[in-house]
């Protein structure tokens, strides 16, 4: 039963990773911008949610507040950080350093505004109850599964069926051609940042309830998102989701054979393995040069 318990725990963690990684993968897939500040979006959304509930807002309104904050921050990054830099055809490193600088600023702002300590959202949904002898599952487990399924279906339908969604997929391939079809690459880029940032919200809210948050959570989230994006295949939303789950389950199951402190490292060993033996990731396309 230990194995089943670890599997359940890993699936819950992995789905939260998947939700977080999906936003980063979508932004990177559409714009090719290495949005390091996605971790800051996650932190801002989480703190907005907790602050909203502390003010007495019902949780749906607190989620809405988190959504507004996340989308506004994503658009801010697109308009005021990335576009001015990319206008001068800046290198990847310029974009990376600028975004990383924003991450540090956001962390400092959160520390000043909300203190440096751990915060969490207490909910009865996170309390595990025995469902079988030796197997404990919290209601939030089913919530995580449901939320992930709904969000992924909606995102999939949007990207596959709507004109804007198809435009987003085309954006990374040929922005010039998009213009010929009457689509604005600037607007599509803003849309990518808005949707990608919105996708960070469920993960942030669920993390606030399950593991809690601290101002320095951003870089850790970013690391997970990056690992999931690479393992899943750069540019593949579906791949990032599968990889997120794979990372979570690996971290959890590895404690059956290795010391518990190797749990987190195991996910990155997996990442390293993919980089070495399957650099295109699970669902990415191999590119010949």
């Amino acid at each position: 039963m230990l194995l089943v318990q670890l599997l359940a725990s890993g699936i819950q963690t992995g789905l939260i990773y998947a939700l977080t990684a999906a936003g980063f993968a979508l932004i990177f897939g559409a714009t090719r911008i290495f949005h390091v500040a996605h971790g800051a979006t996650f932190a801002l959304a989480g703190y907005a949610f907790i602050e909203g509930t502390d003010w007495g807002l019902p949780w749906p309104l607190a989620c809405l507040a988190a959504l507004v904050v996340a989308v506004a921050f994503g658009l801010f990054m697109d308009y005021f950080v990335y576009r001015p830099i990319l206008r001068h055809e800046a290198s990847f490193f310029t974009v990376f350093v600028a975004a990383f600088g924003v991450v540090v600023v956001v962390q400092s702002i959160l520390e000043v505004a909300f203190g440096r300590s751990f915060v969490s959202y207490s909910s009865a949904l996170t309390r595990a109850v025995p469902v079988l002898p030796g197997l404990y599952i919290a209601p939030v487990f089913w919530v995580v599964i449901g939320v992930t399924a709904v969000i992924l279906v909606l995102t999939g339908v949007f990207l596959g069926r709507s004109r804007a969604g198809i435009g987003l997929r085309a954006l990374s391939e040929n922005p010039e051609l998009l213009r010929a079809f009457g689509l604005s690459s600037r607007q599509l880029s803003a849309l990518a940042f808005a949707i990608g940032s919105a996708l960070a919200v469920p993960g942030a809210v669920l993390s606030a309830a399950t593991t809690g948050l601290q101002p320095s959570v951003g870089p850790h989230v970013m690391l997970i998102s990056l690992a999931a994006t690479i393992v899943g295949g750069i540019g593949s939303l579906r791949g990032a989701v599968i990889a997120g789950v794979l990372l979570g389950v690996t971290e959890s199951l590895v404690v059956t054979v290795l010391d518990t402190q190797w749990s987190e490292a195991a996910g990155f060993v997996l990442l390293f393995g993919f980089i070495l033996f399957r650099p295109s990731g699970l669902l990415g396309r191999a590119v010949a040069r």
Partner: protein
Amino acid sequence: MIQRRTLLAASAAFVAAETTFGRPARAEGSYIIGTLFPMAGPNAEYGTIFTAGAQMALTHIAEDKTLGKPVELRAEDSQSTPQGGATGMTKLANVDHAIYTLVGFTGVSKAAAPIGQRNKVVMVNGGGVGPDLSGLAPLFWNVIPLIDKEIAALLPWMKGQSFKRVALVYVDDPLGNAVLKQMNTVLPTIGATLAGSYSIAPTAQQFGPIAAKIRDANADVIYFASYGAQQSQIIKQLRDNGLSQQMMTYSAATIPSVRGLAEAEGLVFTAQVSDWSASDPVTARFVKDWRAKYNGDPSTYHQNYYNAVWLFGLLVQSLEKAGKPVDGEALRAELLRVRKFPLAGGDGSFDDNCDISFPIQVNRMKGGSFEKIG
């Protein structure tokens, strides 16, 4: 009209001059106390707490006007890592010319100690509790009882509760490894055993798998040795994952984020005795001013770093009166000559290793505060 280039050159020259000459010039007219605390990252909460305690003592020293020179505080971020400790101590000793530094965290202290000792800088620890911090260097002092004393104080209570199988969750660093070693040694003396020991990386944030392993090990009590935001995550996630066993830890749990955590209700932890109703003048002033400023009681960390700075004031005052130079060696000699000092919380006595001795009590978390249970 000043040209742009001239203005830039003048600004650069000012910055260079200020960097080169500014700090030492001020240092000559004041005593420099350095702080080497985590000021960012998951343990930053401690940095804020430690600094607040030290600042209150500085305020009191300034109000009393007992020292010949003002005291200045210079801060370096240790990032709670040994690397950060070594870099920070180097800067405090060589750039800021601090003669007295406040440190916390076992790993940071162990990395900083050789550098401080080489530069004749006193280092006072009020936060790290690894047992090997005792006698780490002649100029390394502890104003906090170390973890071996805390665990020893917990044993009689554990025996009274008839706990037999202990699960230990410990961070893989000098503190955690010291706790593991100590537990392996002392648990058999009360008829208990380690049912399982689970090491975690200092950056770990997911404890669901550990909860599953603890349940599988059939432990009847859980002791965790961690600090900062991580200990709140451990408590919350172990409880959320259905573990209802008694949880225990050490004095790191006195920080507000743990006290405010609903899942921490009932947590048992050890800490030095803090009697805020004591009538001695040092304690009474500390508690009165603390309550006036922060609208609540101080924690033991506030007390420790208040005491560290207050001790500096007492030692320097004696040295100045005797007309002796104020440096690391002289401060140590004065400490070992006097040994017993009036500090916040009562008289503090120092042994040959310059470790303070304070009685330790067992507490239980109750409604965001704690009550003494042993």
